[in-house]
C-alpha cells in the first residue's frame, strides 16, 4: 500500500514539474537567469489576445467579382481576336452585366451563315472553362464561365490577397500578425495586428491603392458625371466606364473631373514589373518610373504605335492620376507624371514590387482596442481572479478544516496545469479567457465539495475512515464525470462557433476542467490516502 502511494506521489510531483516548465518555457529549452525577470517569462509563451494587448482587428471582404471581371475581360479580347482571325463577322463581344454577372459574355450579331463555324471555334478553344450556348434566334452566343472554374478563381483571388496583405503588413513591423481566411467560404479575410493603434495607416497600407492601370481615354475631362454621359449620348456604352480624377492631378486643380475611359485596360496590375520613385528634372515633381513585363511590353507597343495622338489615363486605386498624350510608341518603360504624395509613391513602389491586389476590398468589421484599455483589462481580470481564488481557498479551510488543505492544494495544482497547458499549446489568453479561469476555480471546487460531502455522509453513517474515503470517491466519481463532460461539450460548441475572445474562454474552460478531473480525483485521493495511512486508530479524517 505504502509503496503504491509513493509511486503516485512521484507521478504527481512529476506532473507539477512538467506543467510548471510548460508555463514558463513552453516547448523551448530552459533559460534561467538572464536579464528577464521570471514573471515576464511566464507571459512570453502565453499569447495575449487583442483585447488584452491592444491592437487592430479587421474583417475584409474580397470583391472577387472584380477578379472574375478581369479574367473575362481578357477572354473578351481573345474571343474578338479569334473571331477576326477566323474571318467571322460579328457585331460586338460584350459583357451584358459586368457588375452582377461578371462571368457572362455575349457575342452579338454573328453573321447567320457563319454561326456553325463560330460555334466550333468557341467550342474548341473555350469549352474547358466556359459553358457555351447558342446561336440564339438573334444570332448571339452566350459564353459563361463554369461555376467550378469561377469558384476556383475566387479562392485563388482570396489566397493571393492574403499573400499581398501579408507582405504589406510586414512593413508595419508587427510581431505575430494574424492574416487568414475567415468564415466559411464567404471570401472574407481576418487581419489582426496586435500593438498597432493607427487604424487609418493600416487601411492605407492594405488597400487604398488597389490597382494600377492604364486605360484609353474616350473623352474628358468633364466637370461632372452628367456632362460626361451627355458626351456619349446619355447612356454609357457597355465597354466604357466613368472614372473620376483624383484631387492631386497634374493639372493642379482641386475640382472634380470625370473621364470616360475604355473599360478594358491596356495594361494593368501584374503587367507592371516595377515602379520606382523619381523626380522630374524640370519641375521637381515626384514621378513614378515604371517598367512592364515583356509580354505586357509587346501589348503596350502594339497599342501605342496604333494610337499616336490619342490620350491614355493612368488610373490608380480607381481614380485617374494622370492623362498623357501618346506621342510615340512606348514599349516597356515610362514615366508617370501625376503629382503624387510621398506616401503614394512609396506605397505604389512597394505594391508593384510585392504585387497588386487582385481585387479590391470591403471592410466588414473593424475594431481597435487601445493599449491602455488592454492593460486595464488585464489588471482587472487578474484582480478578480486573485480575489476569487483567495475567497475560495479560505472558505475551504474554514469549512473542511484539514481536508480544506487538500482542496486548496488541488486547486493550486489545477492552476499550474492550466498555465502549463496554455504555455505548451501556445493558446491565446483573452479577457473572457481569464473569466474562464475564474469559472474553472469555482467549478473545480465543486468536485471537491461533492467528494467531501459524501465522505462526511459516510462517516456519519459510521464507516471507518478509509472506507468512508473509498465510498466518497466511488459515489462522487460518476457525478463528477457527468458534470465535466456536459460543460466540456458546451465549451467545445463555443469554441466552434465563437469569435476570438469567446474561443479563448472555451479554451481555458476546457483545459481547466480537464486538469480538474486529474486533480480532484487522482491527487485528492492520494493526499487522502496518505492522510488515512497516518491516522492513529480511532482518529477520524479531518473534514
Amino acid at each position: 500500500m505504502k509503496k503504491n502511494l509513493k509511486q503516485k506521489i512521484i507521478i504527481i510531483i512529476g506532473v507539477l514539474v512538467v506543467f510548471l516548465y510548460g508555463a514558463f518555457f513552453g516547448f523551448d529549452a530552459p533559460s534561467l537567469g538572464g536579464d528577464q525577470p521570471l514573471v515576464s517569462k511566464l507571459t512570453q509563451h502565453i499569447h495575449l489576445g487583442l483585447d488584452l494587448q491592444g491592437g487592430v482587428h479587421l474583417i475584409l471582404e474580397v470583391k472577387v467579382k472584380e477578379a472574375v471581371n478581369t479574367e473575362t475581360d481578357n477572354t473578351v479580347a481573345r474571343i474578338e481576336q479569334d473571331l477576326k482571325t477566323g474571318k467571322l463577322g460579328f457585331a460586338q463581344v460584350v459583357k451584358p452585366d459586368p457588375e452582377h454577372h461578371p462571368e457572362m459574355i455575349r457575342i452579338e450579331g454573328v453573321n447567320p451563315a457563319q454561326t456553325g463555324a463560330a460555334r466550333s471555334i468557341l467550342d474548341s478553344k473555350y469549352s474547358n472553362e466556359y459553358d457555351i450556348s447558342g446561336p440564339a434566334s438573334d444570332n448571339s452566343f452566350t459564353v459563361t464561365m463554369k461555376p467550378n472554374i469561377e469558384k476556383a478563381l475566387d479562392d485563388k483571388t482570396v489566397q493571393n490577397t492574403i499573400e499581398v496583405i501579408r507582405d504589406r503588413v510586414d512593413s508595419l513591423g508587427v510581431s505575430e500578425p494574424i492574416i487568414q481566411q475567415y468564415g466559411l467560404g464567404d471570401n472574407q479575410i481576418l487581419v489582426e495586428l496586435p500593438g498597432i493603434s493607427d487604424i487609418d495607416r493600416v487601411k492605407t497600407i492594405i488597400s487604398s491603392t488597389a490597382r494600377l492601370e492604364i486605360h484609353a481615354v474616350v473623352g474628358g475631362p468633364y466637370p461632372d458625371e452628367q456632362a460626361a454621359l451627355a458626351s456619349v449620348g446619355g447612356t454609357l456604352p457597355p465597354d466604357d466606364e466613368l472614372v473620376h480624377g483624383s484631387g492631386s492631378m497634374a493639372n493642379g486643380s482641386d475640382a472634380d473631373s470625370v473621364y470616360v475611359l475604355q473599360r478594358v485596360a491596356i495594361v494593368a496590375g501584374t503587367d507592371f514589373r516595377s515602379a520606382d520613385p523619381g523626380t522630374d528634372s524640370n519641375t521637381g515633381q515626384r514621378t513614378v518610373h515604371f517598367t512592364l513585363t515583356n509580354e505586357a511590353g509587346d501589348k503596350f507597343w502594339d497599342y501605342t504605335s496604333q494610337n499616336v495622338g490619342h490620350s491614355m489615363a493612368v488610373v490608380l486605386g480607381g481614380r485617374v492620376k494622370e492623362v498623357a498624350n501618346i506621342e510615340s510608341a512606348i514599349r516597356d518603360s515610362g514615366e508617370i507624371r501625376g503629382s503624387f504624395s510621398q506616401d503614394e509613391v512609396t506605397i505604389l513602389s512597394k505594391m508593384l514590387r510585392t504585387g497588386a491586389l487582385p481585387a479590391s476590398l470591403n471592410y466588414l468589421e473593424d475594431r481597435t482596442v487601445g493599449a491602455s484599455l488592454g492593460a486595464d483589462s488585464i489588471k482587472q481580470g487578474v484582480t478578480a481572479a486573485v480575489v476569487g481564488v483567495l475567497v475560495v481557498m479560505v472558505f475551504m479551510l474554514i469549512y473542511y478544516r484539514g481536508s480544506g488543505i487538500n482542496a486548496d492544494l488541488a486547486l493550486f495544482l489545477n492552476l499550474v496545469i492550466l498555465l502549463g497547458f496554455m504555455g505548451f499549446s501556445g493558446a491565446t489568453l483573452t479577457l473572457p479567457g481569464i473569466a474562464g479561469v475564474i469559472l474553472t476555480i469555482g467549478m473545480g471546487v465543486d468536485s471537491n465539495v461533492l467528494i467531501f460531502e459524501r465522505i462526511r455522509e459516510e462517516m456519519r453513517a459510521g464507516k471507518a475512515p478509509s472506507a468512508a474515503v473509498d465510498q466518497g470517491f466511488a459515489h462522487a466519481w460518476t457525478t463528477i464525470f457527468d458534470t465535466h463532460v456536459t460543460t466540456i461539450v458546451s465549451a467545445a460548441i463555443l469554441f466552434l462557433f465563437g469569435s476570438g475572445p469567446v474561443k479563448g474562454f472555451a479554451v481555458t474552460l476546457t483545459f481547466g476542467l480537464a486538469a480538474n478531473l486529474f486533480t480532484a480525483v487522482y491527487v485528492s485521493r492520494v493526499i487522502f490516502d496518505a492522510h488515512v495511512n497516518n491516522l492513529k486508530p480511532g482518529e477520524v479524517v479531518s473534514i
Partner: protein
Amino acid sequence: MEFFHSVSVDWLGKKWYFLAFSLIFSVSGIISMAVHWAHPQGGFRSPVPLGVDFRGGTQVAVQFTQPPNIEQIRQATAAAGIRDVSIVNYDVASKHEVLISLPEQHLESALDTGRQQIEDALRAKFGDNSFQIVNVAVVGPTVGKQLEKQAVLATLYSLLGMLIYLWFRFQLIYGVAAVVACFHDTLITIGAFALLDSFGVKGLEISLTVIAAILTLVGYSMNDTIVVFDRIRENLRLSRREPLPDLVNRSINQTLSRTVLTSGLTFLTVLSLFIFGGPVLRGFSFALVVGILIGTYSSIAIAAPMLVAWQQWRAGAGNIAVLPAARRSKI
C-alpha cells in the same frame, strides 16, 4: 463546520410557490422584452439591449482629460451633422470615459465613416489633446448577421447535445426536464437584461461574450440538475417502495449541502468578477451572477417537480415510485 445537519424540507410541497416565483420573473422578463421591442433605439428593434456585435454600427469609447460634459459632446456631433448618436457614460465617472454609438451603416463601403466623423467632430470642439480614443468597434451588417447566426446555432446545438447526453445516461424524461429547466434559466437571465434596462440601468448589453456566459450557465445549470438526478437514481435503486415525492425530497435534501456550497462558492468567484472585472466583462459577469442563482434554483424548483409530475400523470393516481431507474453505464 457544517451548515446543513440532517435537513428535511418538503421541497415538492412548495412547488406551487416555486412556480409562482418563476412565473413572476419570467413574465416580468417577457414584459420588459416586449416593452424594449416597442421602443426601437436608433432605428433598430430588439427585445433586449444588444451590444454592437449584434446591433451593428459604430461604438467608440473616448477618454477625456477633463470630466466630459455629455451635452457638449452632443452639440459637437450635432454640429458635424451626425445623427442618431447615443452618448453614455462608460464605467465609473472618475475615469472620464464616454461611449459614443452610431447605428448600423447599411452601405458597407461607408463602414468606417462614422468613426472618422466622430473623431473629427470631437477634435473640432475640444481640440486634439483633451481626448483619446480608447476602443473602437465598427460592425457591418454582413458580420452582424453572421454573429447572430453563430449565437443561435451555438445555443441550439448546446441544448441538443445536453439532451442527447442525458437521454443516454438517464432516460428521456430526465433529459427533457433538465432542458426545460435550462430554458427557464436562459429566459429569466436574458429577461433580466431587459428588466434592468427598463429600470434605467444602462450599459448591460447582450454581446457575443454574453452569449458565451449564457451557454456556460446552461452547462452549469445542467451540472446542478445532474447532481440531483444522480442522487434520485441512486435512491431509486435502493428503495423501490418509497413514494416518489418523498424519495425526491430526500434526494434533494441529501444533496442540498453540496448544492448550496458549490453554488455559493461559484457565485462568490463570479461576483468577484462582476465587481472587479471591469466594464468589458460586465455584461458577461452579470449574466453569470444571475444565471448561477437561477440555475441552482431551477434544479430544485423546476426539474425535480417535473419528474414527479410526469410520473404521476403517467401512473394515473398513486404515488408509487415507478420512475424507471435509468441505466447506469460503467465508467
